[in-house]
């Protein structure tokens, strides 16, 4: 019987983290930006059926980058978690923090106990009755959670794009303004002109706090084009 080579825990974790990070950086970025009436999500995604941004519950949405089958699985788990909680207690008792914790535990457990980490990065966002009540949680492949304020960029060249957003984003922007910023950010290239991404290539959704119960809404077609023209 051959003995396996000794690998130090540090090295093991580092290898896993590198593996996950590489997988996540391969995909296209998702930009999450708070605006005066809610939270906007945008990504470059020509598919109309395979979504990266989805509704979880009345005021809660989910955005992900990385491997589709892995984050789709987590999305379905999130919908089940939220619906079960709302059914057992009340619709008002479902919040983003609880869901973010459940995701964090799941991602963390898979990262440490299974042979392959999940190659995903998630955002769980909830709109409150006013901008001060908005919550945006960012979850990494290793289960770490960060409570973000105002904006998140993940996937692809997340760091470069993040610096651009940080420079331009400010609290109280309107929806056309943040969508304009999102599209400029997604189209940014390391060298040369910013690409212009047509509306048909974008997946855009909002959590709109002015809507009565289910705040989540996808923006497509003529409506999206109008909003982009206004930004």
């Amino acid at each position, binding site marked *: 019987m051959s003995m396996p080579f000794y690998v130090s825990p540090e090295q093991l974790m580092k290898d896993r983290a590198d593996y996950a990070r590489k997988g996540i950086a391969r995909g296209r970025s998702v930009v999450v930006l708070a605006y005066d009436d809610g939270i906007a999500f945008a990504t470059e995604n020509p598919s109309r059926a395979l*979504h990266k941004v989805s509704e979880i519950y009345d005021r809660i949405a989910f955005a992900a980058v990385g491997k589709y089958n892995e984050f789709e699985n987590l999305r379905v788990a999130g919908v*089940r978690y939220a619906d079960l909680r709302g059914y057992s207690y009340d619709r008002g008792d479902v919040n983003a923090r609880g869901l973010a914790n459940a995701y964090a*535990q799941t991602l*963390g457990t*898979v990262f440490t106990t299974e042979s392959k980490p999940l190659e995903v990065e998630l955002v769980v966002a909830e709109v409150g009755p006013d901008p001060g009540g908005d919550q945006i949680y960012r979850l990494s492949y290793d289960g770490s959670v960060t409570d973000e304020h105002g904006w998140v960029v993940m996937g692809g060249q997340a760091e470069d794009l993040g610096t651009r957003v940080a420079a331009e984003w400010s609290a109280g922007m309107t929806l056309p303004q943040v969508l304009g910023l999102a599209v400029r950010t997604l189209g940014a290239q390391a060298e040369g002109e910013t690409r212009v991404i047509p509306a048909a290539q974008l997946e855009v959704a909002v959590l709109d706090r002015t809507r009565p119960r289910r705040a989540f809404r996808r923006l497509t077609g003529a409506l999206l084009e109008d909003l982009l023209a206004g930004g």
Partner: protein
Amino acid sequence: MTTDPYGRLPRAFTAPGSASFVDFLAGHAPELLPGNRPLPAGAVPGAPHATTIVALTFDGGVVLAGDRRATMGPTIASREIEKVFPADEFSAVGIAGSAGLALEMVRLFQLELEHYEKIEGTLLSLDGKANRLATMIRSNLGLAMQGLAVVPLFAGYDLDRGTGRIFSYDVTGGRYEEHAHHSVGSGSVFARGSLKKLWQPDLDSDGAVRVAVEALVDAADDDSATGGPDTVRGIWPVVASVTAAGYLRVAESTLAEVVDAVLERRRAEHDREGASRRRPDGGLR
């Protein structure tokens, strides 16, 4: 509920496949399903019963309406219970029978439709929704045999066909599509007679609301378990229309006007009838 030793979401949450919340509950937390609770022996003590629901189609949609009374034996358990609910954006469900179980079933049914919509990213077909409701009623058969039957009336706008459709059910989960109009509950016999005479194929939305109110007033006239419009407290029936634009609950102010018109006409007819029977000296012939 089973929990994972590491605190991660249990296997049932990440199992791929089903878009049904009821199926998920059956696997993960079966005790939460209404049909899975053990029945204690003996007779069921008195519990509120919900009464009359009417539904009728009109050009471009369907109207569903219910009175506001719940009874417990000879007592009025509630005079402002609501028995008509949006099932999702394009359908509505009204309930008759054991109120507590029916309300729980509606809550689960609403969640079932929304859950499917979120997971699949698309709406169930109207027939699909009607079939899901049938399955849920079938699972309630044990309780129905104890006298706790739930008999809903389901109505919705079929986006594929572009028409309003009505489905009725029996306690065994039988699903029957009704044409033009239907009514369930204790006052349904009287409401159905009224609908039969008043329904016309070319009704518009306002006309359908008026016919629904007339039918409920007729049911309340002859059935003690059905409540008529309460003009003293201002409690009107719950009336909802479902069209291509979605579910819309008719405003209280509109209902007040419709009820006033219906009652005013009946009063005038009654006075005319009375006048023809009155002798010049004031007595009746």
